[in-house]
């Protein structure tokens, strides 16, 4: 069971949250200007690291707000939590 610190509500159990995919994938400014390859990159290609991953979560059974989490995909340790629009924190070594 993950314990996730919602920036607004504090630490809660994983079952209150939903996963929202890799973070910092901005919707293209002008989708029509993209080639098929660029569009595929945006829509389908994922980083999928074995290690630290920055991802989006939403507190669906709480305040229902979105935020970003940096989490290790092997240990599941959460190394950072930050609000939308905030820059990601520097990576820990």
């Amino acid at each position, binding site marked *: *069971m*993950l314990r996730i610190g919602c920036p607004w509500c504090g630490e809660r*159990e*994983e*079952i209150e949250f*939903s*996963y929202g*995919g890799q973070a910092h994938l901005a919707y293209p400014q002008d989708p029509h200007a993209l080639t*098929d*390859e660029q*569009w*595929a*990159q945006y*829509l*389908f*290609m*994922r980083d*999928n690291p*074995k290690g630290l*991953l920055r*991802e989006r979560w939403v507190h669906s059974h709480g305040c229902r707000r979105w935020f970003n989490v940096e*989490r290790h*995909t*092997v*240990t*599941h340790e959460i190394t950072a939590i930050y609000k939308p629009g905030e820059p990601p924190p520097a990576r820990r070594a």
Partner: protein
Amino acid sequence: MRYSIFSLVRQAFAGHRGWDEAWRTPEPKKQYDVVIVGGGGHGLATAYYLAKNHGVSNVAVLEKGYIGGGNTGRNTTIVRSNYMLDDNAHFYEWSLKLWHQLSTDLNYNTMFSPRGVLNLAHTEGQRDQYFRRGNRMLLNGIDAEWMTREDIARFIPHLDCSDNPRFPILGGLMQRRGGTARHDAVAWGYARAASALGVDIIQNCEVQGFAREGNRVVAVETSRGRIGAGKVGIAVAGNSGRVAGMVGLKLPIETHVLQAFVSEPLKPMLDTVVTYGAGHFYMSQSDKGELVMGGDLDFYPSYAQKGNIPILEEAVAAGLQMFPILSRVRMMRHWGGVMDMTLDGSPIIAKTPIDNFYLNGGWCYGGFKATPASGWVFAHTIAHDAPHELNRAHTLERFETGHVIDDKGAGPVAQWH
């Protein structure tokens, strides 16, 4: 040595001391025509069909741990071909046909048991959707059958077919030719048959990188040294992204963990595979009597080969809706495997932008049933440098051209498939 009733009787009288090794354990050679990375069912089946169907036997299968120690040995072994879209339907149906003759072909008992796979429907919308899929299956020449609630109550007496559950059962879509198999035996059977045809199976050999010359891979860097390769095929399940990343390929894949769990052994109570439709849960009973169960993946990417408790709880709750009789049964073990979830829910069995580097991955929840056909078409793709008729559509390019194969119509989110 061929396995038969006679060899068994002979060995019984000889104290079972005369069995030889099921497969050879050679030192890696300097160079192979084809190197397969990943000694799960798919890699081993590929090597077997390369040798058997295409006469390419100077082949090595490199496995970082022991063969079958990945998802092949961790899955709930459900075998079926009840897909809707043609590209998947014909591929999985060929696989099911191969399953029905696999033990004879390999001379190894894979314990394939066509006990039927029944998908329960709980709402009218779901029922209509199952009719639609069932009809598509029939049009594709695949067996499908609608069972009413009364049929099901007779067929699975312990299933709660009353009006009491929150989501009563309306009926179900049955594929009788589907069933289960013994997962380890599939890895061992393919390994033995491939080894007998000259394939080298090399365990404890992790692939750590590839040596390139221009747009070709010329050698594989492993924990046991450099191994030259004419062609390289990867079949590494949840590690597809990592291994493809070693040649600079980025894939439409996320790695997720899926759990399975078994109960203590019970007397025979369930002689089919049954899946819950109002949530995600599936169950069958093994020959040892354990109930083998599974549910959803954990919904966030993970390379940990173990699962988390909330999903387990949810799956068990669904199971108890179906089988209240199990409320006091004890769980014996639970575990997880890391799977490569593609963004359209279908596998990739294809050439890649690198000339002699081939990709077999993206098996999501359901790659065990694909094992024979996956090996069959991947061997063809590698031997001919061109896809087989049955994996023509399972390319990497489909994500650019828009020809995604999204059987569920779920959209580009890995964990929704």
